[in-house]
Structures are given as C-alpha cells and as structure tokens.
C-alpha cells in the first residue's frame, strides 16, 4: 500500500518536472525572435498589425483586443498629471493618454491610468505593466540606450528651473552656495543639479525625496532653501500653493534654465509598429493645429475640399473615392476621433498649462514651427 502511494507520487513529480523542463530552455537567441514565445512575457504570438518589420511583441494587437490602454502617468503634478478632488485624472499628459486611446481604440475614455513614481516608471514600462508612459519624462541618451525605451515625438519642450521663497534674495545659481536644495530622486533633475553646481564649483546639499509630498513639507518648513524641478512642474506647484502659506506670491521661480528637458511619451523597445502608431496619433494633434482644425470645427472640416485635409481626416479622395491608409494599424479616420474627443495641440495646451490656466505658461518653444516654435509635424502622406 505505502509503496504504491510513493510510486504514484514519484510518477506525478516526474511528470511535472518533465513538463517544466520541456517548456523551458528555449534558447537565448539575440535576434529577438519569439521562439519560446508561449512562455515568454510581454509578447503575444499574433503577427504584427499593418506593415511588416515589427520585431518581438505586438502591443497594438494586445491593446485592441483588451479594449483599454494602460497608460503610466503622474498623479501629483498639477497641469500635467493630477488627480482632482473628484478622483478624476486631469492634465496635459493625461490628455495625451486619451489621444492615443482615441486613435487606437476610438474611445478617449478607454484608458486605465496607472500612477507611477519617478523611480518605478521605467521598470513598469519594461515589464509590460503599461503600454505607454506619458509622465513628463525627459528624453536622454541613457534612457534610450540602457532603459529599453523608445522615445516618441516631444510634446512639451521644458527646461529645469529653481524655485525659492519670494522673500529670499537669490537671483543666480551661484547665490545658492551652501544651500540645501530639495529635488525628486530618480529624475534627470537630480543629475542636472549635481552637474550644474559642479560645473560652477558651488557647494550645496541635496535632499532627494521619493515623491512630492514630503518634499513640499520640507520646503514649507524651511528645511531646504530651494526646490528644483522642470519649470512646468514648478509652475504647477506654485499655482497650487495654499493660501495659508502665502499662496503663489510667496514663491519665486529663478530666471535660470538649468537644462533642456524635452518631455514626451515613451514606449518599450522592440515594437516599432506600436511606436509608429502612437507617434502618429500624437503628431495628428499638431497637424490638426497646423490645419486650424479643432474639436469645435471638426464637422465643417470633414466637408473640406482641400485634398491635404481630406487625406489627413481619412476622407475619400476626390478623384477615385479611395481612402488613404498609411499602414500604421490605426483606423483611417483616427485623426477625426482624436480631434473630436480630445482636441488639437492648442486646445490641449491651453486647457491644461496655457496662459489662461492656473499654470500660466506661454507657448514659447511649444508653438508650431509656423509661429516660431519647435513643433514640426511631418507630412501625412
């Protein structure tokens, strides 16, 4: 009796082991082929949508079959990624999550927002927890290289700044010798702070926090003398500064730009189809502003005779009634969905960070190339 039970157990264990061993060790080829695809993470085995050439995963197909977009966002930066009292996500980056969802799924609200800290964001992207990271992330060489990330079109050209109390008399970075400076850890801000102050030969003490809550407390308690971050973030914080501590007038942002901070959406390396699809969804908002199409006049624009506009909006061409499909895997009228449900770049900008919003940021470098800014959408043909 006992020996037959042991024998049965032994058979079970052997079977389990053989199964595991059989599925494993599928070879470590470097060309990214999904040979042992069934057990590898982050990829489905369906063929890439649209044109060929996609290596590895198929995020576009996964998103379309799932029906929602997993978007990595910030929840603590007013103007960019913020949670209102009603629990709604609001901001420039949030709107771009909706742009991608509108383009890929046709529904701007089909987004699952995943708030991430600066230290978690790249790991979350690499592991496949999110499909796209739109979280005021600066494009740098090391992130492109060693973080397994692909950066898409820059949506916001920013720079790093320094915020101090209005009653202090700091004007230049050199005035901050010996000061304690609060910064968020895990950001390019932290690295820039170090290199800028080293370059000037100025001693200082950094105080790096995981997120903005204890940082704000420390700044309020005068634990640190200055707060450094992207200027847009500082503007957002300043706009939200409580009246009990003097309101926005109690703070001053120095007239110094410490670095270039091109902020834009990020996707994972290895899926160029998905990267192209997201990229053109974003470019559609800028192209729409260039054509003067907004959510308010989209219906009139659909009737336009201009062949460029008709092609852009996925309308049948005059001559033969064919509809232009660039092979991105997106529906041919994705631009219409984007504009109608979210708006063009100007609307997104003004709604969240524009001169009339709480942040009060001028377009500056963020204007279209026709207005002296840096946004230059490639032709849609």
């Amino acid at each position, binding site marked *: 009796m006992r*020996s037959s039970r*042991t*024998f049965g*157990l*032994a058979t079970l*264990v052997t079977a*389990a*082991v053989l199964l*595991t*061993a059989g*599925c*494993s*060790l*599928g070879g*470590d080829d*470097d060309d*990214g082929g999904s040979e*042992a695809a069934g*057990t*590898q*993470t*982050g990829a489905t085995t369906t063929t890439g949508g649209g044109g060929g050439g996609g290596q*590895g995963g198929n995020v576009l197909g996964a998103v379309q079959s799932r029906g929602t977009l997993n978007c990595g966002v910030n929840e603590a930066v007013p103007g960019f990624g913020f949670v209102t009292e009603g629990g709604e996500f609001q901001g420039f980056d949030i709107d771009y999550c909706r742009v991608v969802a509108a383009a890929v799924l046709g529904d701007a609200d089909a987004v699952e927002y995943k708030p991430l800290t*600066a*230290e978690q*964001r*790249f*790991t979350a992207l*690499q592991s496949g927890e999110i499909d796209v990271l739109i979280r005021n992330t600066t494009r740098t060489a*090391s992130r492109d*290289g*060693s*973080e*397994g990330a692909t950066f898409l079109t820059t949506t916001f050209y920013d720079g790093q700044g320094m915020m101090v109390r209005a009653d202090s008399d700091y004007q230049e970075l050199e005035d901050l010798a*010996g000061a*304690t400076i609060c910064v968020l*850890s*895990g*950001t390019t801000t*932290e*690295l820039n702070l*170090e*290199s800028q102050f*080293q370059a000037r030969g100025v001693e200082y*003490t*950094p*105080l*790096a*926090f*995981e997120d903005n809550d*204890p940082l704000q*407390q*420390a700044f309020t*308690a*005068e*634990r640190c*003398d200055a707060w450094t971050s992207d200027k847009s973030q500082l503007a957002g914080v300043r706009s939200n500064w409580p009246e009990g501590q003097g309101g926005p007038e109690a703070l001053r942002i120095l007239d110094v730009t410490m670095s270039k901070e091109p902020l834009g959406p990020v996707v*994972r*390396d*290895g899926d160029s189809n998905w990267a192209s699809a997201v990229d053109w969804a974003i470019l559609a908002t800028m192209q729409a502003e260039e054509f003067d199409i907004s959510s308010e006049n989209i219906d009139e624009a659909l009737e336009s005779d201009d062949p460029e506009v008709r092609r852009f909006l996925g309308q049948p061409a005059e001559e033969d009634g064919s509809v232009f499909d660039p092979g991105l895997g997106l529906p041919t009228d994705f631009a219409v969905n984007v504009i109608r449900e979210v708006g063009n770049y100007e609307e997104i900008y003004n709604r969240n960070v524009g001169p009339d919003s709480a942040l009060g940021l001028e377009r500056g470098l963020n204007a279209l190339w026709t207005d002296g800014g840096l946004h230059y959408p490639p032709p849609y043909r």
Partner: protein
Amino acid sequence: MSATTTAVTRRPPPWRDVRVLRLALQALFLLGVVSLVLFLLDNLVFNLRRLGIETGFGFLDQPAGFAIPDSDFRSSQDIQAAILQGARTTVVVALAGIVLATLLGVVVGVARLSTNWLVRRTAALYVETFRNVPVLVIIVFLYLAVFLRLPPISRAVEWVDVLVLSNRGLVVPWLRGTGSTGSFLLAALVVLALAAGVWVWRTRRFDRTGEKHRRVLWAGATLLAGLAVAFVATGRPYGLSLPERGDLGVANGFRVGPEFAALLFGLVLYTASHIAEIVRGSIQAVARGQTEAANALGLSEFQRLRLVVLPQAFRIAIPPLANQFLNLTKNSSLGIAVSVYEVTKVTRVSISQGAPAPQAIAILMLVYLVFSLTIAFFTNLANRRLTLP
C-alpha cells in the same frame, strides 16, 4: 507448513525499495527545482536582451551621477562606491538602532513588571502604542510632525555656543583629527591589548588564589593610564571642532540630520516595544522558585534581578532578540521614505538612473543577506555560550 524455515532476507525490487525511492524522489525534486530556476533565469535574460538592457554587472563601473549628502561620496565615483557608502549608512543605523533599542527595551520590559502602578501602566501604554503602529508610519510621523517642526535655521536654538538645534539637525562639538591621530590610535590599540592582558591575569590569579580579582579596577586603570600616556606622547592627536552657525547651515561639529534621526528613533521606538515584550516574557518564564529562593537568601530586588533572574531570562530571550535585531536591520530600508541614503535608497536611485533592475536588486538582497548572516552568527555565538550543558 514448515515451521523451521529461516526467513530469507531478499531485497525488494527497486520500484518497491523505500530507500531507493526516497533517493529517487529527492533527486527528482532537486532536478525540478534546478530546472525551474534555470527556466526563470533564461526567461529573464531573454527578455532583457530583447529590450536591449544589459544582462551583466558592468553597470557597477559606471559613474553614479548623483550626489549622496552627508558623505564624502562624489558624483563622479562609480555605482559600486555608492552602494558601499549606502551600506555604511545602513550599518551605522543598524548598530546604533540595535544598541539603543535593546537598552530601551530591557528598561521598559522590566518596568512592565514593576510593583509601582504608574511605572507599570506607563510602560504598558508605551508598548501597546508602538507595537500596534506600523513602523513606517512612526518614522514618517517623527519626521514630518516632530523633526521638521523644529525651528528653521534662521531661528535656530543655540546653547552656549556649543550646541545648535534647528530643523536642519542637531550639531554638537566633535573631535577633529590632526596629524598625530593615526599614531595615537595605534598606541590606543596597544593599550587596549595591555588592559585585556591585565584582565586575564587578574582573573587567573583569582582562579588560583581566591583573592578578590578587582579586575575591572585594574584593567580600567591600565586603560586610562595608558591612554593618557599615549595622548601626551603623541602631542595633540585631537582638536575640538565647535559648531559655527551660518545662514544656511552649521559648519564644523558633528551633525545629526532630522532624516537620520527620524529613521533611527522610529526604528528604536518600534523595536524597543517588541523587545520589551520579549524581555517581559522571558523574565516571567524564569521559574517562580528562583525568585522565592533569592528572596529567601535575602537578596534585594535589584540583586535578585541582576544575579538570578536576568541571567536566566537572557538565555531564553536570545533567539527572539536575534529576530528583532534582524527586523531592525531590514526595516532600516524604510529610510527611503525620509530621504536617508542607506543602501536601499542608493540602489533605487541607481535603478532609476539607468542601472538594470534585476542585477541591482540582486546585489541589494546580497547586502542584506550578509548583514543578516553576520547578526545571526553573533547571536548564535551568544546562544551557544549561554546554553545549559
């Protein structure tokens, strides 16, 4: 039926032989575990390569790029040096935490058994409060509600030019090394060895002759005399560094920052509440007969505690105490919440600045493993020395 047949011991066939089956099962299990681990590793390497993330440990030689406050670490040094600096901080927090928590825990634990009602209730209140609050909450509370609320540097409290207290830290006078510090330390080592020799000599003399050894007096006197001679002989090995208050901070002296203090005191308060319970339990586990016998011998309460109860209670308390020491060491990783650059925070910052996460976390786990094994080693030593034969 032949009643005289001798039983023939025949080995059963392998598939029914228990010994063979046991070995086979163990081998199969081992094979299963090994193949699972290999599969997971292979999966990891495959996916890292697919994303273009490096799979080796080369990142350790990259320059860190970030600064670590309150240390000599420069941002141009490599990540390996950063992790070592973080480990140093963890060691300081762990050691200081263990010592302080044990002291406080023993005091509170004994107080819980006091005959004085007020003392007993206060100790019970302390234990119940701090045991039931998560340690992270205690640390963050101490930082935000206590240490940040100290006066800002512009209104710092100065005490006779010697102490400066503000929400940027407590600065006390400290010894400043001069040129002859090295030789003084060498001489101090020699004196220490001498004092140890005196201790052993007096103990041996006591064993041989039975005369009072007074070894503490002898060894202590040797130590002090030797250090004094070394101090004079090496000139001025140490100078005094007094705090000087500026607008943005305090120069010189030795500074304990609010972040470090919040982490240390949070850990100490929390762990001490657990240690108090362990001490109380171990005292109560000593047989009642011992207390009664000590009373019968006429020992005072303090003598009874020190000579009879505590030595026996200590024996019982060591394994759970070791546990608490390990917990404190690992809880020091909560320094990330209040910006203390211990090894976990340094690793996290490195990861967010480009180091590959699986390798960096593996190193972090190794560091904590080394700490834990060291603590376990020393407590096992103590355990073995104190076990009843």
